[in-house]
């Protein structure tokens, strides 16, 4: 199908975009890369009166290093992260996450800010930025505010943004050398959304045992969830010997499901999540310092 009629606006500055959104009111929507919005417009699931296209705002595209980390403009595309055109504050984690999103032609246009604002429970960026404890900068008619990426999603496809607010940037502290990251996405087919998405960060002691574990899961609840019981279970063990049976009790406790649940689908779901966590651990990699992408624009 084709979208219903709408008015189209293409501001060049954030202030102009915010003024447009405030002036046009509830009937206006932000257009980022369009890779989630356009399918909805085409199917006429939503029929906004106005679209404010923010991809013409040069200051939103690209990234720059800041003290201790990297600041990514909201209109930075998945592809730019995948191809290393911007520094990787996750020491390889961000590029891995980006490469797993949809298809190349989707990654060419889809943006970090759009993905965060869309708040799909199965999407990559909300989980990854929650695990990295990133900060999201938002600009609206009442000014600029910052909030933890963990607090942006409020439910499935619901973010805490006001209608006149746009995501401007995401700031991520760089993972230190010596830390490890793992990401695994379980999905039906290449390019599909995750049925489970695990992101794990950890240190190792001299004997290779896990310490300082941070473990986050996507596609399990309406918003990304942290798995503290599983983190505790993993601490002091070595990643090599871990199988699904070993992590299952932790994941079950964190998700409030029991492996003996009478519901087959719930039991299956639990096992998928546990297996995803295991694979994220098994394929974990040490942080590599990202000199690449230096100077790729500056939001």
């Amino acid at each position, binding site marked *: *199908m*084709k*979208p*219903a*009629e*709408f*008015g*189209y*606006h*293409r501001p060049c500055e954030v202030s102009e975009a915010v003024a447009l959104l405030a002036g046009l009111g509830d009937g206006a929507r932000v*257009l980022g*890369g*369009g*890779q989630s919005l*356009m*399918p909805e*417009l*085409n*199917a006429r699931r939503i029929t906004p009166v*106005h*679209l404010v*296209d923010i*991809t*013409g705002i*040069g200051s939103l*595209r*690209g990234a720059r290093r800041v003290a201790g980390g990297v600041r990514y403009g909201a*209109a930075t*595309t998945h*592809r*730019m992260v995948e*191809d*290393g*055109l*911007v520094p990787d504050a996750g020491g390889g984690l961000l590029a891995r996450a980006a490469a797993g999103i*949809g*298809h*190349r*032609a*989707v990654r*060419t*246009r889809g*943006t970090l800010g759009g993905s965060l604002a869309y708040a799909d429970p199965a999407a990559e960026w909300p989980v990854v930025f929650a695990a990295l404890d990133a900060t999201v900068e938002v600009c609206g008619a009442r000014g600029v505010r910052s909030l933890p990426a963990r607090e942006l999603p409020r439910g499935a496809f619901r973010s805490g943004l006001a209608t006149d607010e746009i995501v401007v940037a995401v700031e991520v502290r760089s993972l230190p050398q010596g830390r490890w990251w793992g990401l695994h996405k379980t999905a039906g*087919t*290449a*390019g599909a959304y995750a049925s489970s998405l695990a992101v794990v960060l950890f240190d190792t002691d001299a004997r290779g045992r896990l310490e300082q574990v941070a473990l986050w899961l996507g596609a399990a609840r309406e918003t990304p969830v942290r798995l503290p019981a599983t983190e505790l279970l993993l601490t002091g063990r070595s990643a090599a010997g871990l199988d699904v049976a070993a992590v299952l009790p932790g994941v079950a406790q964190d998700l409030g499901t029991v492996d003996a649940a009478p519901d087959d689908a719930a039991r299956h779901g639990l096992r998928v999540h546990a297996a995803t966590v295991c694979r994220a651990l098994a394929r974990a990699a040490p942080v590599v310092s990202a000199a*690449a*992408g*230096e*100077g*790729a*624009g500056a939001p």
Partner: protein
Amino acid sequence: MNEVSPRLRVNGAEHTVTVPARTSLADLLRDRLGLTGTHLGCEEGVCGACTVLVDGLPVRGCLTLAATCDGAEVVTVEGLTGADADRLRAAFSREGALQCGFCTPGMLITAYDLVRRRAAGSPEEIRAGLGGNLCRCTGYQALVRAIASAAGESAGEPGTRGGAEPGTRTGESHPRDRA
């Protein structure tokens, strides 16, 4: 403001077309420029039939507004030229990589992007790269063979990352991409 007049360079020719703002790039190409090689299947980003190059990068023609492409360089299957494109066309025909042909334009654009980036080194890589292009006829085996064959012929030559082309306002490939 419900009409827009994007200026586009399509397969080398300049066009400024006035269309309703809701017009997708694919609809502009097909209905206003008569370039019906670009096909529309699902219009939700899944099938890949509408894939075209914008500023050297593959995009979904169905999920890209024509308005967003003001100032952009667009290449459709009709304008795909160069050694990599010629090898792919020959290989598709030689290997029987098409039957009804509905998916073929998107397949060729996607395959071109893979081959040009030298990202079609193994059958696994090719299969992963074709994940966003559906074919209801061939069963994919011949497609993978054809792309592997064309990629083999380009193997010794330098590839490009794609998107290093001078970009404009599509929010994508921009001169500063050239890190």
